[in-house]
């Protein structure tokens, strides 16, 4: 006969604010810090009023500085949450920030054409350079000399500044708006990208060494491997190219799904991280170069045993018997199948299920109610178990999509546990919380009804043709019992 039919989990659309693409991609005023192998951010800084740019770690990895669309530069401690310092002075978006080699200063470049040098200890502005004639979009501080740094600008120039003087010491013409600059660790070579070109400059002579044209769209970001042997460039043409720094030939290239906006290599070149225009952060790990075991310990069945009979053609008299596919049942379904109702309810009240998929919990409660055993499943619970149920109710009762099912469950719980109320302070507190929630909800409904009444009056006074207002209201009716309990 027919097999067991699993519980149908109803998916409820979440009502309210519509999530559009814009909100998803650009309303992220946050900096996420990811661990090496984590899929989820391990830390988030969200004290930004507008889009954050160019989050940069200090060399020792303990401080973090970031620019912002509103012109602010903020300095964070990695362990803290609130900014340590806020450098106010730029009038437009700050797209580039960096720490100087002595760790005590921060260089920033902004869309107001200025480059500023800040002091971290007393959060003061030390110097301002107003030599660029267009947006400053990239910059890099020298790793050797604490006073030297370079900036690239949309006025096609790359300028090197010395903090000891108050003007640029070197300026080179890139030819296109400069998207990214990079200093070699030795400090002798400078790499700049802009347009489709990547150019390498000799800093001592101030002249062009090599001009690379390997991308067919604007090169947006540059990166150097830790050994200095490889140079990486990412571009809007969705490719990352890897050059050898001795021959300046392309030795490798990566393809990505979308145009690349930023690119970084982790310490020891183990990971390449690429940010793309579709809002996706791609993290690729380098394959570990462990040697394979010359002798596998156990011989697996040969490939031909798996494909044996796969392409066997059915003969005339043969009867084909397919292997029955085993139906996978969820754990709660298995419990329900064997009529272990309390266990099934316990299983869907686990924190992981309650937080991630409350609709599963609600569906199981609904199913138990349909089977007429919800009271049995809810009865006979100790303080800890009942407070778990109550927590779920408190969390989800006010959601209109779950309300009809959960109100019923709440009534049953109150009926069952009314005689023992007052024995456990924890549970009592939960009940009071629930009561407050219900009262709040009733007030809210009343307000809504008032508003609706006012709107009806307004509509009535308006002599327009389409007078049918399709405003729907769900009047949640709570029984008086809940009000009077505890």
């Amino acid at each position, binding site marked *: 006969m027919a097999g067991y039919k699993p519980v149908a989990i109803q998916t409820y659309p979440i009502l309210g604010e519509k999530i559009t693409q814009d909100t998803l991609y650009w309303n992220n005023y946050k900096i996420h810090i990811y661990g090496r192998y984590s899929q989820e951010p391990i830390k988030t800084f969200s004290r930004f009023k507008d889009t954050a740019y160019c989050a940069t770690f200090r060399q020792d990895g303990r401080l973090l500085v970031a620019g912002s669309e509103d012109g602010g530069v903020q300095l964070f401690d990695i362990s803290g949450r609130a900014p340590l310092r806020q450098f106010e002075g730029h009038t437009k978006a700050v797209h580039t920030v960096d720490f100087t080699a002595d760790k005590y200063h921060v260089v920033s470049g902004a869309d107001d054409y200025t480059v500023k040098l800040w002091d971290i200890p007393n959060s003061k502005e030390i110097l301002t350079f107003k030599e660029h004639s267009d947006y400053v979009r990239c910059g890099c501080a020298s790793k050797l000399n604490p006073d030297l740094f370079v900036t690239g600008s949309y006025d096609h120039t790359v300028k090197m500044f010395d903090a000891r003087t108050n003007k640029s010491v070197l300026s080179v013409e890139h030819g296109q708006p400069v998207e990214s600059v990079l200093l070699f660790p030795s400090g002798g070579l400078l790499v700049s990208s802009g347009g489709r070109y990547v150019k390498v400059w000799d800093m001592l002579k101030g002249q062009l060494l090599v001009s690379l044209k390997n991308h067919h769209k604007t090169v947006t970001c540059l990166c150097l491997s830790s050994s200095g042997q490889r140079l990486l460039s990412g571009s809007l043409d969705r490719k990352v190219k890897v050059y050898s720094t001795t021959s300046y030939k392309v030795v490798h290239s990566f393809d990505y799904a979308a145009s690349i906006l930023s690119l970084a290599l982790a310490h020891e070149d183990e990971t390449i991280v690429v940010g793309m225009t579709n809002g996706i952060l791609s993290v690729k790990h380098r394959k570990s170069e462990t040697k394979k075991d010359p002798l596998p310990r156990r011989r697996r069945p040969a490939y031909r045993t798996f494909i044996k009979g796969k392409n066997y053609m059915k003969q005339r008299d043969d009867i084909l018997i397919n292997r029955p596919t085993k139906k996978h049942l969820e754990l709660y379904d298995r419990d329900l199948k064997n009529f272990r109702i309390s266990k099934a309810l316990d299983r869907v009240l686990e924190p992981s299920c309650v937080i991630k998929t409350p609709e599963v919990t609600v569906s199981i409660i609904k199913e138990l109610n349909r089977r*007429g055993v919800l009271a049995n499943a809810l009865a006979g619970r100790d303080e800890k178990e009942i407070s778990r149920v109550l927590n779920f109710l408190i969390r989800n009762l006010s959601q209109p999509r779950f309300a009809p099912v959960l109100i019923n469950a709440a009534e049953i719980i109150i009926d069952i546990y009314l005689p023992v109320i007052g024995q456990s302070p924890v549970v009592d507190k939960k009940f009071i919380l629930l009561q407050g929630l219900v009262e709040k909800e009733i007030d809210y409904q009343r307000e809504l009804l008032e508003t609706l009444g006012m709107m009806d009056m307004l509509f009535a006074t308006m002599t327009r043709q389409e007078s049918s207002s399709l405003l729907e209201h769900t009047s949640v009716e709570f029984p008086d019992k809940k009000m009077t309990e505890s």
Partner: protein
Amino acid sequence: MVEEESIRVVHCGGSELNFRRAVFSADSKYIFCVSGDFVKVYSTATEECVHILQGHRNLVTGIQLNPNNHLQLYSCSFDGTIKLWDYLDGILIKTFIVGHKLHALFTLAHAEDSVFVTINKEKPDIFQLVSVKLPKSSSQEVEAKELSFVLDYINQSPKCIAFGNEGEYVAAVRDFYLSVYFFKKKTTSRFTLSSSRNKKHAKNSFTCVACHPKEDCIASGHMDGKIRLWRNFDDDKKYTYTCLHWHHDMVMDLAFSVTGTSLLSGGRECVLVEWRDAAEKNKEFLPRLGSTIEHISVSPAGDLFCTSHSDNKIVVIHRNLDASAVIQGLVKDRSIFTGMMIDPRTKALVLNGKPGHLQFYSLQSDKQLYNLDIIQQEYINDYGLIQIELTKAAFGCYGNWLATVEQRQEKETELELQMKLWMYNKKTQGFVLNTKISMPHDDHITALCFRNAEKSENPTLVTASKDGYFKVWILTDDSDIYKKAVGWTCDFVGSYHKYQATNCCFSEDGSLLAVSFEEIVTIWDSETWELKCTFCQRAGKIRHLCFGRLTCSKYLLGGTEDGILCCWNLLSCALEWSAKLNIRVMESDPYSENIAAVSQSSEGSDLFVFKPSEPRPLYIQKNISREEVQWGVFVPRDVPELFNSEAHQWLNRSQFYFLTKSQSLLTFSTKSPEEKLTPTSKQLLTEESLPTTPFYFILGKHRQQQDEKLNETLENELVQLPLTENIPAVNELLHTPAHVLPSASFLCSMFINSLLLSKETKSAEEIPDDIDMEEEKESDDSGEENDFTEKAQVTNDTGLEEDILHQLSKSEEKELRKLRKVDYSWIAAL
């Protein structure tokens, strides 16, 4: 053109199959079940109905195999007759007229010329078990008036009576009593459940009883789900019983297996439980049988079981608890909410089936085509549980779409509603769920209908609800980057002064939508959804609404609660005519202008067939049914019939079927039901009428070979037999001197004749003996087989040695007989 008979109301199939226990034939190839006035013979392998035994004039109440001839079947009926049938040919052999209303029938192997029946004599509630002596007579109809009383004050149901231990006693249960009658001692013992007066055990009354076939053991089922096994009941004091408890609701039926090693029980849980060795811990289950198990029966060969279910279904189950076949009739378990519809594709009748299912029932072949699972949830059958009910369904767009509505209401304010839309998939030849809409309305949906649009147009569905709105749903593109898909969305919501929407209906061309709001009918343009006009008759709420068809498409008909039938003209927006008719069912014929209306009055239901353009009806049939008619539908005919008379013309292209409150499916026909159900008078293949069991393959074949060898040797001997010495004609011819003989031409014919004759007499002598021998062998075979199976199961039986001895003597006897035969022939040869 043949002379036309008058139209009459006939039953058309769909009768109950689960009224009584089904009975297996001796070889387990056929299964018999009562079905209204008929007995149906089904094949257990193919689930096909091979014969319908018809002849009873009232409900058949019991069937049993003839214990003396397993190719014959007894049946008893409310018409007071017992009939004996040859089920292989499907012919009636004999009728015994008893005269009383017979409620149940039992047969016993050793009581050769009598059967047992249940009758009620004086009061309507008191039933008696009596034995009826069946007189031996060659005539077709025999009076059997010789009744002898066996047991009094018994339950009417045959489940409450069981014969045990090869007919030594009969056990009957009623309320809290178990009575056992011993045939030999002619005494009755009566046992009362000790706790019957105890309030706590108030629910443990008896429901059914079964007897062990070999031992003195009675199993009884109880209301509280317990099974009691009674032993030592020949002593009023020392009797004992043990309890088996798994069922949580009443035990509906019990059956012992043929050997008595296992007990089968079933109930409302839809689970067949097999108790092995009568032990509580040794049990096997066959779950999810679909609905309440009403009856369980076991085949005499022991290889099959079958369960009859409350949804008019018989499940044939293998010995190893594998369901092997399902014989499904029209499901009539529950009330019909959806009404009757016709699937445009299969022309099958569609209505509520099993819980949560929609059944597709073929009216031509009187069998269920398939069940469509609508609710798709685990069905828990428990008393007092509020189930999800399938309340509405509608087909649209040439059978491409199916819309269903299911609801569950526990309390006044808690209504769960769900609407599902199913698309017909040509590849899988079935309906596939396309869109699920939860809570399409805030209150009950009262009607839904599709627009019967052209193929190019967008499918449109309208639902009307008690919340005062009607909603228009249209099919839209629901594709995304992953797949192309279509889905249904709400297109328009309409209302009229917050009245409840009670009905909705599209005109034939789909251009107009009529929605009734209580007493008012509103007409909407289906292109712009503008309100065109309203009709109001102030004669109660509109109960039925339908547009005229073809030439009458300008008319709109409405039936109200106050018993007024109104016809409005849509062109003049005025009432055309009205009539006083308390309408229960109004259906329009899809192939003509005709509309059938069934009205309800205190005497019964009347049928009116009319055209909207003429207020005079085409045809009236009074009193079609004493009960209330609930649903009706026009079913298009496969082959149009030609009736010339005006009164019959409405039956030309379609037939009107209707369903009464007691769920009997009726129709109008000029033919008698016997003609309608063309009996399949096929000659059934009869083999050796013993099942080919594994034992048969091992032992039977071996024996056959031996027999063949024996026969061969016999034949070799027999070849020498036709000797000429002892034929007088030959002797005469050979020994008479030639000169005294007449001419050779005169003698020739005589000589040859004598030779022929001698041969004939020989074979005539020889053949019957052979047949006898073979028959003996056969019966010996079967006897041995049976013995053998018993031995295999009851190994430490003390009677074993005796059996062997007995058997040896038998075989010795046979050998001796053979020897005798051979000797005789040798002697003859000499």
